[in-house]
């Protein structure tokens, strides 16, 4: 049987979910027997491949770049998993949402700047008016809340899916855990 084509992506999050993924420790070796990691911040390829079976998405959709990425990924992924609170709810990145982008940028880069106050506009993505949970932009197949979801939770989700079953997360993780 050919290996499952597996990817992970890091949008607007702190990378904590990816750290939690790595916390699976020796179980990663077991997973490596079953999946090919075809795209991830943890491996080399820079282009998201054309056909991927399972993609874990860490982070909320906050910039035009995130939006473009997640739409492309959705188109080329069979099973999309929202991993962690930022991806599922917007979480900490969404705390800017009650404010306008201009207000947020001014606060961060002008009002509180001690050296060279200026708003970055070269080679950085433009922020969207509001940070959005992934499911408000593209269809999500499985929601895995947690900040971050534990390594045990991620392992459970992946192994359950690899067996062709639907994971039941009700007793395993929650928002904010």
């Amino acid at each position, binding site marked *: 049987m050919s290996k499952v084509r597996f990817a992970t992506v890091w949008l607007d999050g702190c990378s904590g979910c990816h750290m939690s993924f790595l916390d699976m420790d020796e179980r990663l070796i077991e997973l490596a027997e079953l999946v090919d990691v075809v795209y991830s911040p943890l491996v080399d390829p820079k282009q998201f491949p054309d056909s991927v079976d399972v993609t874990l998405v860490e982070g909320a959709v906050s910039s035009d770049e995130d939006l473009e990425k997640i739409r492309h990924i959705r188109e080329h992924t069979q099973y999309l998993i929202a991993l962690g609170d930022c991806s*599922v709810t*917007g979480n900490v990145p969404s705390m800017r*949402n*009650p404010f306008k982008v201009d207000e947020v940028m001014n606060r961060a880069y002008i009002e509180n700047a001690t050296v060279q106050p200026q708003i970055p506009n070269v080679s950085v993505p433009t922020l969207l008016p*509001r940070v959005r949970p992934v499911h408000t932009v593209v269809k999500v197949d499985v929601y895995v809340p947690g*900040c971050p979801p534990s390594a045990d939770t991620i392992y459970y989700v992946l192994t359950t899916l690899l067996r062709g079953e639907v994971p039941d997360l009700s007793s395993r993780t929650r*928002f*904010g855990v």
Partner: protein
Amino acid sequence: MKQPSSHIKTLQIDGQDVGANQDETILEVARENGIYIPTLCEIEGLSPHGGCRLCLVEVKGVNKLLPACVTHVQEGMEVFTNSPRLQEYRRTILELIFSEGNHICAVCVVNGRCDLQALATKLGMTHVSVPYLYPRRSVDASHDRFALDRNRCILCTRCVRVCDEIEGAHTWDVSGRGVQAHVVTDLNTPWGDSDTCTSCGKCVNVCPTGALFEKGKAVAEMSKKRGFLPYLTQMREKRSK
């Protein structure tokens, strides 16, 4: 056959025959019989509010759903507490509550000890499918020992009721209507300037979320101490007898 005394009612909850006093609510009878109905604004020891709508139940022959916390029992009632329709509505109610405020569990002072968060887990809310409102709400940190973060307030009015009914101070009230509704102290003046607040902390401890909290507590450090409420209620009942 001898008729049962008129103040005792018999009814069915989820197919189970139960007996109740006529002045009891569906929620009280369900609890006495070990039948779980989710609640959020309700707290034992305070008057019922009927605001959160999580305790909605179906009653045979009644077209609309009824809140169990404020609906009194009737002879022959057939109550259903956990149909798939109710489960779905309750999840939607939770989603509406989450979407209406700014609830960020990961950075909340009561993370892991929050009634709203616990219900979301228990009732299987996987995500919020209704649009988030991201309202701009204010924080009042003018009190010496406590603070109010309206971003986390769900308008259950537990603070209003405990302050009025138990402490007797009536510092808290709800101001505004609809999505503009918010809790205020003393005719909307800063909490720290309040003439009526006794700083007893009862409001902080009955608050189901992190909206009211003790200063100096960081993420997930605050736990609410609610033992006083049934104790005070019991002692007062004894005294009034």
